[in-house]
């Protein structure tokens, strides 16, 4: 049996890898300390040493189809203990960055997302869209900074009214359709990205686990992953036990659940508005009772005592807390050991943007500072757009890619089912 492998080292690929965050990869002299110290690496075919060898040799095919990059949660222990400063942890995150960049189409967005140079352009797109809406509405309403009073089902500009963002950026005609479209765009992009990823995984060896019975379905693997890895962060928790690892774990957990909370809030608003107010009340003509409650729950602006609003505020606080943890860890990183790349900073910037402009919008609205409130809200819209529309090409794409990869790893026996 000949298992000779033809390798054709690819210099361009090595250089590309170095650009997206693996600049130290050439320093590796293959001592395997990284694989030994990794708290998550499986005993069979451990990472990241093999990835370091592949990277040095420029073995592109193997690296872009490597599932193990998603098994890594980037605690940086390998990089900390690397005797040569080769930063294997950085290489794996660089490989993930390459995946963000290349998996989903159109790849031009991936290119823009890969460096700070693309940032203004990416920001310009939502800025133009929402600026256009703002200017049209300003023309229609007669002012760029309107105050509103309720007028039946609608709103009316009034000098002594309140700040209502929905008045300037009408949800029904501007916000919701645009975000709806963005969401569909994102979902389609992800679908393509996932298809690409799974296609790449096809060549991976399967491990038959004795005692597991038949190979589990992808769905059951996905559920297992969501239950164990996503909801409980179980692998993440095992990823390093030092102070900084705990900081990262809590930060990530807070941000994660803050997003869940905010997603719930958004869902309530959407369901309340479109299902309660629009469908039940407007189309079916139901009044009062459950329909009224549903419609009310989604009605904005909400009173501060509304449980939904309370959840939203709690989410905002948790988000800021988590972000602070993550940011302080990242700024405290020893650059000789591991470094942060543009993908890390982009995501932190955007989420910070969302959190701060979101909270700012609420505060400025409550204190009635319309000159600050509307621009802040405008920025909020831009950041949210940036997060959602570019999600498949950003580091946040790991929400989807990692989940799918971990589920697939279970399916092919790379990871066991259940608790780890």
């Amino acid at each position: 049996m000949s298992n000779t492998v033809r390798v054709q080292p690819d210099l361009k690929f090595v250089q590309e890898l170095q650009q997206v965050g693996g600049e130290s990869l050439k320093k590796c002299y293959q001592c395997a300390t990284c694989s030994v110290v990794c708290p998550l690496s499986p005993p069979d075919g451990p990472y990241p040493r093999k990835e370091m060898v592949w990277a040095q040799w420029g073995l592109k095919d193997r690296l872009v189809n490597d599932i193990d990059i998603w098994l890594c949660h980037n605690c940086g222990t390998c990089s900390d203990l690397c005797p040569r400063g080769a930063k294997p942890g950085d290489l794996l995150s660089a490989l993930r960055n390459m995946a963000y960049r290349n998996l989903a189409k159109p790849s031009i967005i991936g290119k823009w997302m890969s460096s700070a140079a693309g940032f203004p352009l990416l920001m310009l797109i939502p800025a133009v869209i929402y600026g256009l809406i703002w200017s049209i509405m300003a023309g229609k309403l007669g002012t760029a900074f309107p105050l509103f009073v309720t007028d039946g089902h609608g709103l009316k500009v009034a000098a002594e009214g309140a700040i209502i963002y929905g008045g300037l950026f009408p949800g029904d005609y501007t916000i919701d359709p645009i975000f709806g479209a963005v969401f569909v765009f994102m979902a389609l992009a992800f679908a393509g990205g996932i298809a690409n990823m799974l296609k790449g995984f096809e060549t991976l060896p399967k491990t038959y686990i004795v005692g597991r019975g038949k190979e589990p379905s992808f769905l059951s693997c996905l559920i297992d992953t969501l239950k164990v890895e996503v909801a409980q962060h179980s692998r993440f928790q095992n990823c390093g036990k030092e102070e900084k690892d705990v900081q990262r774990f809590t930060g990530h957990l807070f941000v994660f659940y803050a997003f869940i909370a905010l997603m719930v809030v958004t869902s309530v608003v959407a369901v309340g508005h479109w299902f309660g107010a629009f469908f039940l009340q407007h189309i079916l003509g139901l009044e009062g009772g459950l329909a009224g409650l549903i419609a009310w729950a989604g009605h904005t602006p909400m009173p501060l005592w509304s449980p939904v609003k309370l959840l939203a505020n709690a989410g905002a606080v948790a988000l800021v807390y988590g972000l602070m943890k993550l940011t302080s860890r990242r700024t405290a990183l020893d650059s000789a050991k591991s470094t942060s790349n543009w993908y890390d900073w982009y995501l932190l910037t955007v989420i910070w943007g969302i959190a701060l402009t979101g909270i700012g919008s609420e505060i400025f609205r409550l204190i009635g500072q319309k000159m600050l409130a509307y621009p802040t809200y405008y920025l909020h819209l831009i950041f949210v757009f940036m997060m959602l529309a570019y999600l498949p090409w950003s580091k946040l794409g790991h929400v989807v890619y990692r989940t799918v990869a971990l589920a697939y790893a279970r399916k092919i026996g790379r990871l066991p089912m259940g608790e780890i």
Partner: protein
Amino acid sequence: MAEAKVFPMHTFVTCLKGGDAADSGLLDMLSFLTQSQVDAEFAPIAAALSKAWIYEQEPQLTKATSGEVAGLGEKVAVKALPEAAQAQAQGILAMMADLRAQNAALNDQVAKLTAEKAAIAADLAGAKGKLKDFEDQAAKGDVKLSVTASKMDEHIKKLEQLMEEVAKVKAQGVVVAGVAGGGAAADAGAAGGDASGAPAVGGEPEADFGLGSNPFADANW
């Protein structure tokens, strides 16, 4: 429960369905499964024990062909036998090892006894031969006696010669001291190597390397 360990599929197939002679991969796998040292000789027993454990977990493999098993993947993750089975397996293997040691000891013994037997047989043959000689000699008895007597004389003569020689050498041994030490005992004026009692050796030395002219060669040393 112990961690699962990953092995190549072909090793697994060999374990379940048999195949080429036990390779090191299979021995590794069986050693892991039974948590003991399995060598080629014990491989079939360890494989049987392991197979039972695997089939118990995956009954459908019992009916599967090698090809079907191989189709399940490129690698296999297995866990070691449960403790009770492990203990049983280790017990059996230990017993086997014992038997093997005993067998080896017995083999040694057999070999030794065989050798001894051969030696005794040879002795016996020799003795028989001698006996025959004796019988022959006995037939011509006086001849034997005269031979012995002449031999005795010969030996005595040789011994005397040797004694003489020893006496001579011993007597001259004292003189020898003068050879190297001559310079010391004699005049102090001569150069170090110019010993007055130097032996009168000389002429062509032997052609070989090193000590050609033998300092012991003459009677003067």
